[in-house]
């Protein structure tokens, strides 16, 4: 990129570097964003995308390098300064306050001191004009993830930024919601705004973005026009090598296979004011198959997982059955002893204890099932045994780490996820329930995890996967059911499933749901 071109850019980044300890999270990054373009920032997890945009938004301070805004060198030392310059950000992990209303959340990021009612009216007007309807008086804790994202976007737009940074915006949306977002982004582009779009979904990058910058291991490895690339060539640039496609051999003899996991009329009252009740859920997963549960986050998947795994016991003992046994009253250890394994959604703090070593984390979920192997005489832990078992998992799952037996928190998200899934696979469970198996995991690791789940099923286990990632479910499932508002649809065999069909169910298109109705009535509030 020559200097002349650089001067015309809205934002120009030169040699930006950020070091955490011994890790160069960003290594002299160059990036230029022109006015009125949608610029994609591509890269696997841990490639440095989030670190880079945090520096652009003033949340992190670079060690070296410079940022030019409209050709002028600037130092962005706080989000406040970024906002003043005209940089807005829509976060990946929402920066919203659950106990406050949408309008209050928006007011907090505007420093104009206007009364909440004025801000609410402005937000409402703007949201309808962009086709992202929003109720400013709703409590954020009551809203779906898609609705929360609208608040973030509207909040960002109200600051009339010239550059909008979106961090993985579609990872929590239904396909239809994502389409709506793309319309909004295209309209913003036509208004002359620039957008920095971070994503790992290559199809949408190809569809929308004018230019792309690809990061790998903290370095820029290429600039390209995504429209001239294929999804696999983009993936190759991101990963640096060919990504193995997941193979799903056809499941055979399914009709005769035994049902290993059965959910029968599962009901659950909401545990907290912000959680979803489960209503009459029925599902059975047979030996040899992978069943996927799709749904927008916050529709009861978490509550469902808790009920199935035994983190929360059921009054009705028959509502959950593992290998024919009624286990509604058994705790998670009891269910594990029957041959089931569970991988929760949250890696740190739920799936693994952050400050404990991997080998210790291995013992935490397997002390009961593998007690003989890991616990020696007089109840003493057999350190050698857990260490070597941990090393075995690390090798099988290709977990990349900085020390032989590091603390869980020191691993990147993808590598920790590989370990946590591998920890359960290593047991060869007959029933495996996984919530968001590859959330925030890079393409290579995700393919590895997905392949392992399919193989487990084909070797005779029942695998239930809860995921928001439709691509993933289509890749690995033999049939897909959709969860919406605490209810589960019937299973749709993969041969009959389409994105549109599943997407409509995710939006609540079954009789009795009105979730799509309020999207269709922008005229109501004018």
């Amino acid at each position: 990129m020559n200097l002349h071109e650089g001067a015309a850019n809205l934002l120009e980044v030169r040699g930006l570097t950020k070091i955490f300890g011994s890790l160069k999270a960003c290594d002299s990054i160059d990036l230029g964003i022109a006015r009125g373009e949608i610029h994609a920032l591509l890269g696997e997890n841990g490639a440095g995308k989030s670190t880079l945009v945090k520096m652009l938004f003033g949340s992190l301070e670079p060690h070296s390098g410079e940022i030019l805004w409209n050709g002028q060198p600037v130092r962005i030392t706080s989000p406040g300064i970024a906002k003043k310059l005209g940089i807005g950000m829509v976060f990946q992990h929402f920066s919203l306050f659950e106990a406050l209303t949408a309008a209050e959340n928006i007011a907090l990021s505007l420093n104009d001191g206007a009364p909440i009612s004025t801000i609410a009216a402005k937000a409402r007007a703007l949201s309808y004009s962009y086709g992202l309807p929003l109720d400013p008086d709703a409590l954020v804790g009551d809203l779906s993830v898609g609705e929360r994202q609208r608040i973030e976007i509207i909040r960002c737009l109200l600051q009339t930024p010239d550059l909008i940074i979106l961090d993985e915006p579609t990872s929590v949306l239904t396909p239809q919601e994502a389409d709506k977002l793309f319309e909004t982004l295209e309209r913003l582009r036509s208004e002359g705004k620039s957008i920095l779009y971070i994503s790992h979904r290559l199809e949408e990058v190809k569809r929308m973005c004018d230019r792309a910058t690809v990061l790998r291991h903290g370095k820029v490895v290429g600039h390209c026009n995504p429209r001239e690339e294929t999804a696999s060539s983009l993936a190759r640039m991101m990963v640096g090598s060919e990504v193995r496609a997941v193979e799903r051999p056809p499941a055979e003899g399914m009709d005769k296979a035994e049902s290993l996991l059965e959910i029968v009329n599962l009901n659950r009252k909401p545990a907290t004011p912000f959680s979803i009740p489960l209503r009459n859920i029925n599902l059975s997963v047979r030996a040899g198959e992978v069943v996927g549960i799709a749904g927008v986050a916050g529709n009861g998947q978490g509550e469902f997982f808790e009920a199935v795994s035994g983190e929360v016991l059921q009054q009705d003992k028959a509502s959950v059955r593992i290998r024919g046994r009624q286990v509604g009253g058994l705790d998670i250890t009891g269910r594990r002893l029957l041959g089931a394994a569970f991988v929760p959604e949250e890696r740190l703090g739920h799936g693994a204890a952050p400050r404990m070593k991997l080998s210790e984390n291995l013992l935490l979920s397997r002390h009961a099932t593998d007690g003989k192997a890991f616990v020696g005489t007089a109840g003493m832990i057999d350190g050698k045994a857990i260490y070597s078992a941990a090393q075995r998992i690390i090798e099988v799952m290709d977990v990349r780490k900085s020390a032989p037996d590091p603390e869980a928190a020191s691993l990147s998200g993808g590598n920790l996820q590989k370990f946590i899934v591998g920890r359960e696979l290593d047991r060869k469970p007959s029933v495996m329930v996984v919530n968001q198996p590859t959330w925030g995991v890079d393409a290579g690791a995700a393919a590895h995890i997905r392949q392992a789940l399919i193989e487990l099923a084909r070797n005779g286990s029942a695998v239930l996967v809860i995921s928001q990632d439709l691509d993933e479910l289509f890749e690995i499932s033999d049939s897909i059911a959709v969860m919406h508002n605490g209810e589960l649809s019937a299973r749709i065999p993969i041969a009959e499933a389409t994105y549109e069909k599943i997407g409509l169910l995710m939006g609540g298109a079954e009789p009795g749901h009105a979730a799509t109705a309020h999207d269709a009535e922008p005229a109501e509030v004018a």
Partner: protein
Amino acid sequence: MDIWVSILLTIATAATPLLIAAIGELVAERAGVLNLGVEGMMIMGAVGGFGAGYLTGSPWIGVLAAIVIGVLFSLLFAFMTLTLATNQVATGLSLTILGLGLSGMLGTSFVGLPGQRLPNLDIPGLTSLPVVGRLLFGQDPIFYLSIALVIAVTWFLFRSRTGLTMRAIGDSHTSAHALGISVIGYRYLAVMFGGACAGLAGAHLSLVYTPQWVENMSAGRGWIALALVVFASWRPWRVLAGAYIFGAIWIGQLHVQAIDLSSFASSSWFIYQPIALIKSLPSQFLSSLPYLATIVVLVLISRNKRLTMMNTPASLAQPFVPER
């Protein structure tokens, strides 16, 4: 009639220090900081207020000194927990222990001295009104200040932008930081406000309630104030209700314990028997009644889970270290 007026007045006097200390702590906790040092800040305010009042001869200077000492003491806590990100529970506990010890040491020469007392309000014509006169227009200045504080804090938290920011920080400090809000700065202010209130509550003890210095004279009131905040689910008007329920039962059981049963010997069976029954209860039970009743009442009124969730500061007591 007069006996009831004076009972009500003593109730208000007993409730005021609890209310002030609790309101200050409520603001700190709304911003996400749990300061268990209320008792320590309060007793430091009491000894400082008494000392300054005694040495200068002005109870008003005593009040001012108590507030300043409360703030300084809370700054110690703020520096430890906010700047150095130490554990809030442990730091608060040590602040209380430090305050109790330090105040006892500083106050040795004050023991037994006659103190200054803040004069009660006296508005000619109004204060002498029958019944309501003394209740509404004849109390000590800190009583009026405590009511004003409840109104002001309610307005501040739920109507002002700064109050909204405080609540937001208490809900999620990481989100607040991402928006560019100075989490640490706001928390310093909230903790200092809590310190000022605790100091003022201490001043009420040694300049109004019992105008003298006695070691450990806060007698656990700081802890009650802390409990009130939680059981009032972080809402100012409920703190007021809790403080007055506590005060009422506290005074009530004192009166009951002081009753001479024989003076009722000639009363009807219906008066004599209940009083005899209450008198037959162990005095320890009567002394614990205020605590029990306050907790029961506040638990009952905070049964709405949704409201409680909305009002509980989700990041309470979590140390915050911004990544840079």
